[in-house]
């Protein structure tokens, strides 16, 4: 049993999500940074998609009511156990009565705390992923708060694992996302098309699991060609889409983003880079680098081969 002493900015139970329900308005959701989530589970010996805690920004305090093994991967939040510093990416035993405290994220935005055996939460459509707008999954469909108790699941788990050289993802306060032109990219002015690739953007305070409003740090607002209609018929939308509303401040749709949208879809983040969006918080600098087919597929295959055991990498069953 884990007891939440302080929920922090926003901490939720997450797993690999519930794909296949966008037609009903339910995004697949799950861990915003799928890679660090999978690595946290892998390092404590769990299946990569076991339920773990996602902590955004920091401030989470947990008391353990049972001896267990935990691992923290992702954003560096200067974790401490009983006041002694606790290293990320290093599975460690904790004892009954220990208190884990996370300070604020100084590099990256989200950290994943995996517990040997996994955690229990409410299942909806085959997943425990917390989706706050519809109050589903997690604990009562909402963020963790002081007084919550989380049960440790009894899924089988193997021995703890150490990270070989080169497998710990580097986090940066400047995230470069590789993108393809979106379905309505050509409706932007040529100057704005160029700005999207040469400009430096910054995520504003309006940034959560649903989306990030981004603002050009050294660029002009992004403009739509005057010959084009400023709003279009609502149409299906994916996570990783950069939409441009008439005010010129783009919105990057994140893991829990809306399933439909009415603004033009300028860019689409490639599949292999979607995990990086989980590390975007208020103030994170973001830039976009354009890709052309078949580059995204080559990158995806390379990454899956590096991390997924099926292709020779580390983690059984994992793919981006």
């Amino acid at each position, binding site marked *: 049993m884990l007891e939440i002493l302080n929920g922090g900015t926003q901490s939720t139970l997450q797993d690999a999500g519930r*794909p296949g329900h966008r*037609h009903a*308005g339910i995004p697949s959701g799950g861990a915003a940074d799928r890679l660090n989530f999978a690595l946290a589970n892998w390092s404590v010996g769990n299946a990569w998609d076991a339920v773990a805690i996602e902590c955004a920004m920091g401030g989470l305090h947990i008391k353990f009511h049972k001896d267990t093994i935990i691992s923290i991967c992702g954003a560096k939040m200067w974790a401490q156990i009983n006041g002694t510093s606790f290293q990320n990416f290093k599975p460690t035993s904790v004892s009954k009565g220990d208190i884990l405290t996370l300070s604020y994220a100084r590099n990256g935005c989200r950290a994943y705390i995996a517990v040997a055996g996994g955690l229990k939460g409410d299942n909806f459509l085959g997943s425990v992923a917390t989706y706050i707008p519809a109050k589903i999954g997690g604990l009562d469909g909402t963020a963790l708060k002081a007084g919550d108790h989380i049960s440790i699941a009894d899924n089988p788990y193997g021995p703890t694992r150490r990270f070989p050289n080169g497998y710990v993802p580097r986090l940066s306060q400047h995230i470069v996302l590789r993108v393809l032109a979106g379905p309505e990219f050509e409706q932007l002015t*040529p100057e704005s098309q160029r700005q999207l690739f040469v400009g430096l953007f910054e995520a504003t305070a309006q940034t959560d699991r649903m989306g990030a409003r981004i603002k050009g740090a050294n660029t002009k607002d992004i403009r739509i060609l005057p010959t084009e209609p400023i709003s279009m018929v609502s*149409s299906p939308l994916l996570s990783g889409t950069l939409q441009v509303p008439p005010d010129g401040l783009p919105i990057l749709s994140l893991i829990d983003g809306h399933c439909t949208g009415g603004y033009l879809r300028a860019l*689409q983040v490639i599949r292999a880079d979607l995990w990086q969006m989980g590390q975007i918080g208020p103030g994170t600098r973001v830039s976009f680098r354009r890709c052309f087919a078949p580059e995204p597929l080559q990158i995806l295959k390379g990454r899956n081969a590096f991390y997924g055991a099926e292709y020779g990498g580390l983690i059984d069953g994992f793919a981006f």
Partner: protein
Amino acid sequence: MSLPPLKSRPQKRLQARPSTRPEILPYGDGAFLVQFQTQHYDPNVTDRIETLKVALQKSNDWVEIVTGYNALLVSFNPQNISPDTAVKHLENTLRTPKKPLKTGRVIDVPVCYGGHFGPDIDAISQSSGLSTDAIIALHSQETYQVCMMGFIPGFTFLSEAPKALHHPRHATPRLSVPAGSVGLAGWQTGIYGLESPGGWQIIGRTPSRIFDSTRAEPFLIKSGDSVKFTPVSEADYLKLDNEAIASC
């Protein structure tokens, strides 16, 4: 430093083509849009999209199949299916002529129009010159096609409302619109499945739970269904609402 502008490629726009001949557009590296050219509700396009959806659902290639007013989205795992194979699959499905199927159900949705359940009905009354009763009669006489679900779970995007009721969205969206609210936006009409912020003109509210995660079937309405609104009194609304609470 000034860089030369990117060369804008000529736009691949299909003109003078019948509205039911779509084009296949890539959407990122794991999805395609089957895009129809209409910018409005077109029953032929909706039929075509629905038929296409049913045909595509027979395959395991697709992770998501999402219908819209003028587009259908399919997503797939590019590591399992190459984009070329996915396009061929879509083209073949589009080529195979299919009779439009009427598979959907007609869902009866009771609505209490006006009053505090429909605060914007007076605005519609002013713009259309119709009495509240005439608006209710007009809005509830139609059987609407469900064209799309989302942007929040249970939000039901319906086919075109009668012309007299067309009304722009609020310039500033409300911070909170209650679950079950029935609204108008431009030519669209629809139902808020969950409480959410929103800019639609709200003319009534249904006691039916459009989305209920605790129910065995969480979704009352699916794309492909039709919706028929039945006006109910406030007393009936409260009775139905209490029944819905009791069955939770």
